[in-house]
């Protein structure tokens, strides 16, 4: 009985891990909000692939704060 209750609690917690206002859910369950970073490109050919090709080089993961960025993610024109 205790094991069953613990299992139910774990299941309930896992389903409740999204945002309360999450509207991405479907009848089959809540949306997975985690977006994994795409894997690096092992044999790049295009410009974007070359920029993001697999490498052993040191890199920095930066998430900048950009107050003037438009809501759609585009850049405003220069003044």
């Amino acid at each position: 009985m205790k094991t069953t209750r613990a299992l139910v609690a774990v299941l309930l917690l896992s389903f409740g891990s999204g945002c309360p206002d999450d509207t991405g859910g479907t009848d089959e369950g809540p949306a997975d909000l985690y977006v994994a970073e795409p894997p690096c490109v092992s044999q790049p050919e295009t410009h974007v692939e070359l920029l993001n090709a697999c490498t052993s080089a040191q890199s920095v993961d930066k998430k900048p704060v950009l107050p003037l960025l438009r809501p759609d993610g585009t850049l405003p024109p220069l003044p």
Partner: protein
Amino acid sequence: MKSRFRATWLFVLGGLLFAQTVHAQPVCDDPVNLPNPIYLSVGDTQVNLMRELGAKLRAAEQITLIWRATGSCTNLDTLYGDVKMSGNFSYIPAGYDPQATPNPPVCSVPSSGVLADIANSIVFLEGCPTPKPNDVADIFGPVQSFAFVVPRASSQTAITAEEAYFVFGFGMAGKVTPWLDNNLLLGRPVTKGTVISIGASIGVPAGKWQGQKINLSQDLASQLAASPDPEKALGILGSEVYDSLRSTLKALAFRAYKQRRAYFTDSTAIAFDKQNVRDGHYHLWSYTHWLQKLDSMGKPRKAAARRVIDILVGNPVTPPATFESLDATVKVGLIPRCAMKVERKTEGGDFSLFQSDTPCGCYFDFKATGSTSCSACSEANPCKTGVCRHGYCEAR
């Protein structure tokens, strides 16, 4: 009384004449002490190359490089319009040692002026206002990378293209922490290749940059290193200028548009291998261009100048140079095109894969880092596979 007065004046005049003789600046037009002169107008990021290559040319071929340093667009206008140059020029004397003498001597060109034999641009020619005339040859040279740089005391490690757009396009109004003081944003005037090239990568044309405009790279570096608020200070430099100033400055990793992570020019923040420039992980670079005038038959107006350009860019020359022409390029932090794995067609433009017909990546790795995974080779010890180039077995 009169004789004493006269004697005094003669003594004073004699002293002045002696002082002038001792400290007179040499003239550039001195065929004995400055033989076979080649006059150049180059970007100030190329001064170290002038020193290193100039020393080799002077020792091996008795060619004297005589140059002034100014902006890419000014250099081009000087050559295009046959504008005569005058004033003080740096030059390479006999026996010059670049390590022992960081600042080469100066000679003077009279006001009647001289024409430039070679002009240099560190950006694609379209980045400058004046179109190239048909009587000018443009030879692509080694790759020059650029960096956003901060004082060593700054805690910053990276900058994204979006951040740079707001910082230098809007100044403090861009609200990108910590770079919120326009007086501590150090850029360059619009004629300088550094700001033209970086501007193309971040989408801020040179004429729109906010912050200060520092004329000389070395002055910008000094001002940055001495900044009263290291955290807010941010500048731009050519990598080969920055590489010699790593004790006081720090280059930021750069994340280009559509890129997921930020990278340094080198494989690590402290390496000198320029790996990320070579393989397309680092966006801020351009080709150096070496230009000269052609005559009415389409031939170089000065054959000796064409030889200097060919040696500089690594083209074969006849008779062959008696020194390894790539050494000076690699030593000053430039990347010969034969070591590149990507190319681009426009300033700040997209990358595409590149493989040189005469690759030199093995040699570049050895000279830049002290080691290479490639096999050594020679006439007596040929390659089992590939082609022996500069003493190492390249893929082709």
